[in-house]
């Protein structure tokens, strides 16, 4: 899964990044790469058995939710 995701991120990075680089839109390139890096981070984190951000969010907020909703 991790490898697949990194591969996809790379593929997207190439497909979207090359035209951007050609047009010289550096800012776009940086933001896009950051987003892709986040995906790779997520995937690597999963591989290292770190909880995903949503799980963290859940740990934090679920008790509140459970108090309000059945």
């Amino acid at each position, binding site marked *: 899964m991790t490898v697949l995701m990194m591969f996809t991120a790379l593929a*997207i990075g190439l*497909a*979207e990044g090359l*035209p951007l680089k050609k047009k010289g839109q550096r800012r776009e390139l940086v933001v896009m790469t950051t987003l892709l890096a986040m995906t790779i981070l997520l995937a690597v984190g999963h591989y290292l058995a770190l909880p995903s951000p949503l799980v963290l969010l859940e740990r934090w907020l679920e008790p509140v939710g459970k108090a309000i909703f059945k």
Partner: protein
Amino acid sequence: MRPFRFGKMKKASEPELIQPRVAEVETELENPKLSSSLADNQTTMQTIFTNCPDFMYRELKIGQERVPVLLLYMNGLTDEQTVNGDILKSLVNIKSSNIIVSGSNTIEIIKNIFLEIGNITEITTIGEVEEAVLTGSVVLLLEGTSKALKIGTKGFDGRIVSEPATEGVVRGPREGFTESLQKNTAMLRRKIKTPNLKLEKFVLGRVTKTEVNIAYLDGTVNSKVVDEVKKRLSLIDVDSVLESAYIEEMIEDEPFSVFPQIDHSEKPDKIAAAIVQGQVAIFTDGTPFVLIVPTMMTQFLQSSEDYYDRSIYATSIRLVRFVFLTLALLLPALYIAITTFHRGLLPTSLLISITAAREGAPFPTVIEVLTMEVTFEALREAGLRLPKPVGQAVSIVGGLVIGEAAVQASMVSPVTVIIVALTGIASFGIPSYSFALAIRILRFGMIALASTLGLYGVLLGVLVMSAHLVSLRSFGVPYMAPFAPFNLKDMKDSLIRLPWWAMGDRPRLIAKNNNNRQRQKFFLKPVPPDDNEK
């Protein structure tokens, strides 16, 4: 994620090219004037036209002064009778008149007094002479002057006006366009008798020098569309334009779409109707197919006969066409999806009979359907290209022998044959051949999706297809109009066809200018005479 961008980028990056013709600039550079010596001119022309046995030059001496005159023309492109009967005769007749034809204004005298032909212009350069000769005019060169006369005698035997082979109608005009541009535009003029019908001439193709005319109704058409058409046409710089498809592919909005974005027709009545409602027609010399822009998808599902039949019938036949469209696109895919993934959707009795019919069939349904579809496409193609008698044999072999035998040998199940046959018939139900081609291609994509992801795959395919369709534009008009963006007023002539008395407005999206929206008097609905009102 769109690697193929260069088509559009090229268009955008060269806006300087909008000047009318590139060829004109070239001709000015290497376009020497005519010499005043006839002999010089003759040698020049003979060098240009070496090895052109169809190039004719006729020398004669006119008037009592015996001034040498040279007539140049292409054999076969000019009307022989005009050349012999009118031009030569009048030139010879100069002798018997007492007007003196030598001097500086000889050419005017010949032009104004002697030639009994309407279309005469003076030309001065070698290039013009060359072009005039090549487009079928006769050029008259005179000793002692550097001017020449271009005498329009264009006339060669073309096909006579006949019923078009592609768009048959039961009711409606039966004439179709021919290969001659002049004849075609004349047929259009015969239908639209107003000076507002404008024709603008372009010459495209470095070698073919094809004449292309755009026709529109001034005051009704959206002038932005006309400008856009002119701009895109003037950007074309190619060797040859032999059919309107050359132009179509070079001016359409989305070059990599499977869907045709420009409609074409060879029926003058259809073109006239399009022009009257504000579209632009593009006539190309040498082909009976005339392009119509802007185009919306519904146009491909309409036939000109819809407007000549009763509106209720026309509406229902249009609805049926939408059903055909869906079937032609999705039927095999749905069959595969349902029989392999979602058998629960089928009624039990139907499921049993399908399963029974598939008994002993060695291949999975996908393979069956695919082979049959490919066979069908092959048969269709074979029947199209072969000489007619052989073509019939092909369809007999295909339909009877292959279908029947394959089922008999239980290679394919009869249900598959039914499905493929239904799909074929449905795709014939789409009036536009070029649109049906797009559907034919997409059908295979849908089959692939259905065989991997079932109904969900079909759904994805339909979503992607409609996303593509709604984002298409043809000369600024959304392709899927009037469905998306939805426009209730324009619905009157889309899925349904209201009676003529109810179609008061021109389609909004085509002719955008507001001042000339109404195309007829309102309240034209026929009212039967009231009995009490005597």
